[in-house]
């Protein structure tokens, strides 16, 4: 039996997580023009917090809430007390600080939790449901889809239909003009980081239990795939992040299904280079403005 259908739905399920993680990167890029290289480490931290809360309470759902809330807090603290003091005109400084944060966060996690993987449970079965003899999505995959879809829909609604979303977009696109119009740009930036932390934390909690478990480096590869997805879609584009994430998930699934799993990273790297060569601003970057 051709595994194409199974690989497709499996790829979309993995891709949904990459999409959510890529969206977290886009949220910060739009606000601060910075690729948050510490996003993966921040998500590893929230995953450990979820792990601790779930172990203490026995409830996966409390762990999930803890991951989201701690993501909000870590994101806000990172922006307010670290990144805000980085000279915004020196882009390399921000990158170095973000990479430094990765080392600090991973070191702290290593000190507290050690370097062994800590397996985590998921709330639904991961055995695929079948139609006839065709395996399809597992209940957990459906949960992942629904959760990511709900997050996307919620963020989409917030950004396009609410005053706070309008202010966040204005602060991201034209910070000086937004200030002149009464928008507290600093607060919007903190909110962007907080939201990104929460979305990244949630995405990590959806994917880490399906692999080896919580570990200071558990999200490293997820970050690489999500970064690729965000660049392919266009770092400015939330829709691009979603499409890029799903695309990366599909490519990974097909490559590992039809070829060698070890080739996955190479193919993704090739995809990234191809997009950067052909359309450096990404597939869903903004249309050119009318010249006036």
């Amino acid at each position, binding site marked *: 039996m051709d595994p194409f259908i199974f690989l497709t739905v499996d790829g979309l399920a993995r891709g949904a997580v990459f999409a959510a993680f890529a969206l977290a990167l886009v949220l910060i890029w739009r606000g601060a023009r910075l690729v948050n290289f510490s996003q993966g480490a921040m998500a590893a931290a929230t995953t450990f917090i979820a792990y601790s809360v779930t172990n203490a309470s026995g409830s996966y759902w409390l762990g999930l809430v803890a991951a989201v809330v701690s993501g909000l807090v870590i994101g806000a603290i990172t922006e307010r007390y670290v990144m805000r003091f980085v000279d915004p005109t020196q882009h390399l400084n921000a990158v170095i600080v973000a990479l430094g944060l990765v080392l600090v966060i991973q070191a702290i996690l290593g000190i507290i939790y050690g370097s062994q993987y800590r397996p985590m449970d998921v709330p639904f079965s991961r055995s695929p449901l079948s139609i006839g003899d065709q395996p399809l999505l597992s209940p957990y995959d459906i949960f992942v889809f629904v959760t990511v879809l709900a997050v996307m829909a919620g963020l989409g609604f917030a950004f396009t239909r609410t005053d706070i979303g309008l202010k966040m*977009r204005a602060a991201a696109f*034209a910070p000086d003009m937004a200030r*002149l119009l*009464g*928008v507290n740009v600093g607060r919007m930036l903190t909110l962007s980081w907080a939201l990104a932390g929460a979305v990244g934390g949630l995405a990590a909690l959806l994917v880490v239990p399906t692999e080896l478990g919580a570990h200071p480096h558990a999200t490293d590869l997820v970050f690489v795939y999500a970064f690729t997805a965000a660049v392919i879609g266009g770092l400015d584009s939330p829709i691009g992040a979603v499409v890029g994430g799903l695309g990366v998930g599909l490519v990974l699934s097909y490559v590992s299904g039809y070829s060698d799993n070890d080739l996955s990273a190479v193919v993704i790297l090739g995809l990234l280079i191809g997009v950067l060569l052909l359309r450096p601003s990404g597939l869903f970057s903004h*249309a050119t403005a009318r010249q006036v």
Partner: protein
Amino acid sequence: MGDPAGSQLRVRGLTAGYGAAPVLRGIDLDIDPGQIVAVVGANGAGKTTLLRTLSGLVEPTEGSMTWEGDELRGTRVHDLVRRGIAHVPEGRGVITELTVEENLRLGHVWRKDKDDARRATAEVFEFFEPLARRRRSPGHQLSGGERQMLAIGRALVARPRLLLLDEPSLGLAPKVTSQIMTLLKNLRDDTGLSVLLVEQNVRSAMSIADRGVVLSLGEVVVTDDAARIAEDDDLRHAYLGF
């Protein structure tokens, strides 16, 4: 010249710039309520820097700026519009990724009186009909004239008492410029709006201004009745280059 004691905006000894060498040096300026003051000068005179300093985008190194009796220095930029001052910057400042409606909504999003904000938006659509037809168009699809209308309209929905307007005629057809100048004059006459108007187009600016201020190399060289400045050939030759 207005009475400085009754000035709505009173600037004294304002010095500001972007580096070690100041762009503005010891600027004195007064605007009375309901007055249009035109600031003119050659390129590099410091006109735009003056507006950016008044709105807090550039930090002054010396001097004072008093607005309705209270010091303006130290006011956070995003609080300025809440104090009744709206700034339409050079290049119009339309956020091109947002639609016309969203740009206008952004202009009053901080206001508590939502009914009046809606009325103000309707007034903008009434006066600038092209905007009403393109309310769902993103800013990057608008023409230069439409963008200028939107930038001014967005400032007006905040119901400011002072409008800082930087080069509104830049790149616009004379007809659109004339329409904008008429709007400013009507707003002054009907609502008592004060305007600090920075313009390269001296004739156009002086045609509606009550007073004129000529800047040269960061200093005020003349403050006088607008009509007298417009008619002073020597002054125009010396400082305005025509």
